[in-house]
């Protein structure tokens, strides 16, 4: 499964540990320095797809009012794969002069 932009950000946010819905929304906003803001609709449709694909799962929490989600092993490997894909793309962009060279 190739995650969408919002799904990939949810996976990235979960690398730090389990989160509940609003916590994920905040993390995504922080990770992208406010460039990507996801609302409850985008977040929970992403959660539904990620759960169905077995990339995240529900986890126990002290707070009974809200559900927390954690990354599964498969979710971690899909996130790694996507990160490598994006890294390769950035390398190509650099090679073609679209981005400044790091050296």
């Amino acid at each position, binding site marked *: 499964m190739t995650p969408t932009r919002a799904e990939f950000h949810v996976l990235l946010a979960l690398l730090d540990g389990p989160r509940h819905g609003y916590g994920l929304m905040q993390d995504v906003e922080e990770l992208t320095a406010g460039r990507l803001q996801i609302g409850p609709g985008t977040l929970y449709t992403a959660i539904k797809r990620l759960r169905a*694909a077995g990339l995240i799962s529900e986890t126990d929490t002290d707070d009974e009012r809200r559900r927390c989600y954690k990354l599964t092993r498969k979710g971690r490997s899909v996130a790694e794969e996507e990160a490598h894909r994006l890294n390769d793309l950035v390398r190509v962009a650099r090679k073609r002069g679209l981005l400044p060279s790091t050296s």
Partner: protein
Amino acid sequence: MTPERIYGVLLHLYSRRFREEYGADMLAAFAELKTRRADTGAAFWAFVLCDTIGAATRERLDAMRWLATAACGLLVTTIAGDAVAWAYRYFYHPYFEGFTLPVLPYGIALGLVLGTSIAIAQRMLFPSAERRARHWMLASAVALPVAVLFCSAAIDRVATGVLPIANAHPAVFEVFALGLAQSRSWSDLATQCVAMAASALVLRALLTRPSMRSRHAH
């Protein structure tokens, strides 16, 4: 009307199943978002509306994948049934006059085609965790009766126009409902339906068994 109530109304844009699963969490996330945002004016509501409409549309389309699966199964089965009927008429010879295809094996063959095409479409459209779910049943429930009734319809019309010999052959409804099988009654049609359903279900059971094993292994 409070903002939470307005958002509660907006949640009705999602399917009932999705609402039941995530509605309460979404409402809680919305309440927190509203509390922590300094600006809850027009820009905030524009953001919430865009998010809700976009996500609800995607979710509705996502929930319709079983219909796409049914359409794939239906299309492939119709083409297969039509191809057999068309080939029979194209290569027609008086020698075949007394030749009939029994209803039961014809139904079983179509059921296998239908089951396989639905399974392949499902493999492409659904993640593994959802493949075993009720989507297969929903897809079959739509594709099965329609496939039986419309098998041979599309190519029959083309063949009637292109191939003069087709004009001398059975009326459209007979080819429609019964394809090559030379059955003449509703009980034959029912037999064909039952044979299709049974073979498609057996195939489904065989195809889903390995994934069940892998689930238990985890």
